[in-house]
C-alpha cells in the first residue's frame, strides 16, 4: 500500500503554495489503494508532501540538524465537489512519529500497529549511502512516513484515536497532550513486561504459532533483503562496465574508415545500456522497501503475542493465587494441614490458635477469596477480550499482508520484464550497428 513518491524538492520555509498539478498529484497519491470502509479516510486525505532541514537545540542543549516532514490534510468532500482548496498542513519530525506509535502500541496492545520506516538506512547496497541526510534516503523515508499514516488512517480501531487526529491537525501542544494521557507509565511497565522472563502454562496455540511464524518471517526476509542488495550491487557492476565499451568504441571509430560509423553508434547504445541500470535499481529499491515494511511488522506481531502471554500469565497467576487461598481456607476449616506453612508449623509448635483467631483468619481469607474470584473473573474477561480483538486484527493483518506482498511480488516480476524489454531494445540496436560495420 505504498503511495507513489512525490517530488524531492525542499520547500522554502513557510511556502505551502502548491500548483494545481502538484495538488492533483497529491490527490492521486492518496486516493489510490485506500480501503473504502475506513472512517477517517472517508473524511480526509492525508499526505506527507515534503521534507525540510531544521536546526535547533536538542535535549542536551547541543546544536543539531534534523529533518521535518510536511503533513497535509484535506477533507475529501471538498475535492469531490470539484473545488480544490489548499490543504491544512503542519510539520513533524521523525521522533514525533515515534512518539505517536509508542502511544498507540501502549493504548491498543491488541492491534498490530504499522511500523515506521527505518530510522537509519540499513541493508543498503553500495551505491546508496547510509547517511541519514542523504536526499534519496530522506525521500524514501518521506514515502515511508506517508504510508505509515495511511495505514493508521485505514485501520478500523486506530483511525478513531483522538491523539492520532490531533497529530494530523494541530502542530503545537500535541506532545504535551500525549504525555498528559499518562501513557508513559504504561509504556514503562509494558517495556518491563516485554523484557521479563516468565513461563505461561496454557497459551493459546494460535499465538504460539503466530510467534513462530513471525520469527521465521523475520529471519527469511532479512536474509532475502541482504542477498538482494548484493545481487543489485553485482548487476550494477555488469551494466556499468559496458559503459567502457562506449568509450573505447568511440575512440576506435576515429581510426577506422569502413567500421567507423557502426562502431560509433554501437558505442552510444552501450552508454545507454550502462545508464539504464540506475532507474532499474531505483525501482527495485521501492520493492525492497515494501518487503522491509513487513520485516518490521514482525516486531509488532511479536508484541501482540507477548501481550497475550502476559495477560494469560496474569490470569494463571490470579487463578493460582485463588486456588491457594481456597486451599488455605479449607485447611483452616478442616484443621488439616496439607501444605507446609510457617504459620502451621508455629501453631503446631506453639499451640493451636484460639477460635477467635481462627474466625478472624477465616474472614480475611473469605474476603481474599471473594476478591480473588473477582480478579480471576476480570482477568478471564480481559484475556478473552484480548484474544478476541487481537485475533480479529491479526486476521485483518494476514489478509493485508497477503494482498500487499502478492502485489509486490507481481510488480517485481513486471520490473524484470521491463528490464528485459530494455535489454532487448539496446542489444537489437547494437546488433544493427554492428551489422553496418
Amino acid at each position: 500500500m505504498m503511495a507513489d513518491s512525490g517530488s524531492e524538492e525542499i520547500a522554502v520555509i513557510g511556502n505551502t503554495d502548491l500548483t494545481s498539478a502538484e495538488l492533483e498529484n497529491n490527490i492521486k497519491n492518496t486516493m489510490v489503494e485506500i480501503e473504502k470502509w475506513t472512517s477517517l479516510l472517508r473524511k480526509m486525505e492525508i499526505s506527507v508532501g515534503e521534507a525540510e532541514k531544521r536546526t535547533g537545540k536538542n535535549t542536551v542543549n547541543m546544536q543539531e540538524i534534523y529533518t521535518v516532514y510536511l503533513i497535509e490534510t484535506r477533507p475529501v468532500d471538498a475535492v469531490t465537489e470539484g473545488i480544490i482548496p489548499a490543504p491544512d498542513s503542519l510539520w513533524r519530525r521523525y521522533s514525533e512519529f515515534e512518539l505517536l506509535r509508542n502511544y498507540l502500541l501502549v493504548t491498543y496492545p491488541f492491534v498490530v500497529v504499522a511500523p515506521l520506516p527505518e530510522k537509519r538506512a540499513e541493508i543498503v547496497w553500495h551505491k546508496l549511502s547510509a547517511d541519514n541526510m542523504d536526499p534519496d534516503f530522506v525521500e524514501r523515508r518521506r514515502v515511508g512516513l506517508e504510508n505509515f499514516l495511511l495505514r493508521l488512517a485505514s485501520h478500523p480501531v486506530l483511525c478513531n484515536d483522538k491523539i492520532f487526529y490531533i497529530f494530523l491537525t494541530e502542530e503545537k501542544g500535541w506532545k504535551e497532550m500525549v504525555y498528559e494521557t499518562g501513557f508513559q507509565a504504561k509504556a514503562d511497565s509494558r517495556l518491563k513486561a516485554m523484557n521479563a522472563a516468565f513461563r505461561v502454562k496454557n497459551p493459546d496455540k494460535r499465538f504460539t504459532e503466530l510467534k513462530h511464524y513471525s520469527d521465521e518471517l523475520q529471519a527469511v526476509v532479512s536474509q532475502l533483503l541482504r542477498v538482494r542488495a548484493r545481487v543489485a550491487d553485482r548487476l550494477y557492476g555488469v551494466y556499468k562496465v559496458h559503459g567502457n565499451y562506449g568509450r573505447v568504441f568511440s575512440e576506435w571509430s576515429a581510426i577506422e574508415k569502413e567500421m567507423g560509423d557502426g562502431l560509433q553508434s554501437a558505442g552510444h547504445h552501450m552508454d545507454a545500456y550502462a545508464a539504464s541500470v540506475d532507474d532499474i535499481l531505483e525501482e527495485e529499491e521501492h520493492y525492497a522497501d515494501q518487503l522491509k515494511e513487513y520485516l518490521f511488522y514482525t516486531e509488532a506481531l511479536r508484541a501482540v503475542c507477548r501481550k497475550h502471554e502476559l495477560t494469560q500469565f496474569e490470569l494463571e497467576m490470579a487463578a493460582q493465587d485463588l486456588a491457594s487461598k481456597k486451599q488455605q481456607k479449607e485447611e483452616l476449616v478442616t484443621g488439616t494441614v496439607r501444605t507446609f506453612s510457617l504459620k502451621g508449623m508455629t501453631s503446631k509448635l506453639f499451640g493451636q490458635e484460639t477460635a477467635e483467631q481462627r474466625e478472624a483468619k477465616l474472614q480475611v481469607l473469605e474476603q481474599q477469596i471473594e476478591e480473588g474470584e473477582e480478579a480471576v473473573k476480570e482477568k478471564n474477561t480481559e484475556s478473552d477480550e484480548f484474544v478476541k480483538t487481537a485475533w480479529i486484527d491479526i486476521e485483518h493483518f494476514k489478509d493485508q499482508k497477503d494482498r500487499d506482498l502478492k502485489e509486490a511480488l507481481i510488480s517485481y516480476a513486471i520490473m524484470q520484464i521491463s528490464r528485459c524489454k530494455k535489454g532487448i531494445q539496446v542489444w537489437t540496436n547494437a546488433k544493427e550497428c554492428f551489422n553496418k560495420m
Partner: protein
Amino acid sequence: MSRTIDAVVSPTQTNTIPADISGQMLDLDEDDDLEVFSKDLTLADGNMFNASMPTSPGSMVNQCKFEEDEESDSKDIFITVDNPESHVTAIETFITYRVLTKTTRSEFDNSEYEVRRRYQDFLWLKGKLEDAHSTLIVHPLPEKFVVKGMVERFNGDFIETRRKALHKFLNRIADHPILSCSEDFKVFLSAQAWELTTYKKQGPGFLSRMGETVRAVANSVRGVKNRPEEFTAIQEYVEDFSNKIGSLDKVTQRIVKEQKEYLEELKEYGPTYTLWSGSEEELAEQLKGVAGCIERCCKETEEQVGHLSDTLVPVLHEYVLCAETLKAVLRRRDNIQAEFEAKNEALATKKVDRDAESSDLGFVWGSLLGKNPEEARHQRQERLDGEIEELKEEIDKLEDRVEWANNALKGDWGRWQRSMRGDLKSAFLSTAEKNVDYYEKYFIFIHTQITVSL
C-alpha cells in the same frame, strides 16, 4: 606471446616471388606461383568458381563456413584440428592434436592426410613462415602459457580454446596465397612424426642464423631514414589499434568476471524465496514463482557468460596478438630498408674514397717500399672499383628485396584489414545476438510465470 625469429631473409633470392629457404627449394614453376596469385585475384574480384572442389564430409563444410564464407566455393584445401590427446613420457606430458587435411592441390601427393602435431610443431611452422616471408602477416598462434585465470595447462577449456586457435591458424595460412604454398607448410600437414623431426633438423645452420640475427639487430639499432609515408601511416594505425583492442580485451574480460559474480549471488537469491514459501500459505505459489524466475535467470546468465568466453574473448585476444605481429612485421620491413640504406651509404663512401686524388698513406708507403707511386694508385683504384661493383650488385639485390617486401606487406595489409573487420564484426554481432536472445528467453519465461503462478 609466440617467439618470432627476427631474421633477415638470406640473399639467395631470385627475382621471382621468393620461395622459402629451408634448403629445399619448392619444385614450382613460375607459372604455378602466378596461378596461385591469380586465384587470389579471382577471389578478390568475387569471381569464385572452382569446379575441382572436393566432396568433403559434413564437418569439413561446416568448418569451411565457419572460416571465410565467400571463399568456400573455391577452397581446394580443408584442414581441421581436433581430437586432443594427452601423451605421457618419462620426461614430460604434452598434448597432441590431430591435423586432418583434405586437398586437391597438385603439390600434395595424396588427397588426404592425417597427422598428430603438438604445440611446439605449430611454433616451428610459424617461425619458418616468418623467416621466409618476413613482411607477410602470419596469423598469431595462441599463447604458450596463459598467465591469468588459468592454472592448469591441461584444463579442458584451455585445451579447447587452444585447439580452436590452432585450427584457425592453419586455415588462415591455407587461405593465404603465398604462405599456403610454403614447403614447410606442406611438410607440416603431411609428414609423419619421425619425418617431421628429420625435416626440422635440416635448413640453415645455427651459426648462419646467428649471423642473420646479429645483422638484424644492428640494422634495427640504426633505424630507417626514409620510410615511405604509407608505412608510417600503417604504423600509427597499428599503435592505436593495439591500444583499442587491448582495452576491449580487458573490458570484455571484466564483463565476464562481473557476470560470474552476479551469477554467484543469484544462485543464493532464488532459494531464499523458496525458503520463505515454506512459511506461507496464500503466498507460497507466488514466492515459488519468483524463485523459478530467478533460477531461470541463472541458467540464461550461465549460458551467456559461456558464449562470451567462447566467442568474443578469444577473438579479441587473437587480435591483441595480431597487433604485436603487425608491429614485428613493420619492424622487419624497416630493417630491410635500413640494410639497403646502409649499403647505399657504404657505396657512397667507397666512391668518395676512389675519387680522392690527393696523396694518401698508401702512396707514401708505396714510395717507401720502392713502388712506383703511379702503379700503387692504379692498383688501389682497381681494388676499389672491384669493391664498388660488388656493392652495386648487392645493392641491386637489396633494392629488389625492399620492393618485394613493401609490395608483400601492402598486399597483405589489405587482406589483413578485411579479415580483421570480418572477424570482429562477426564476433560482436554474435555477442549482440546472444544478448538479445538472453533477454528474450528470460522475458518469455517471466511472462508465462506471471500468467501461471504469480
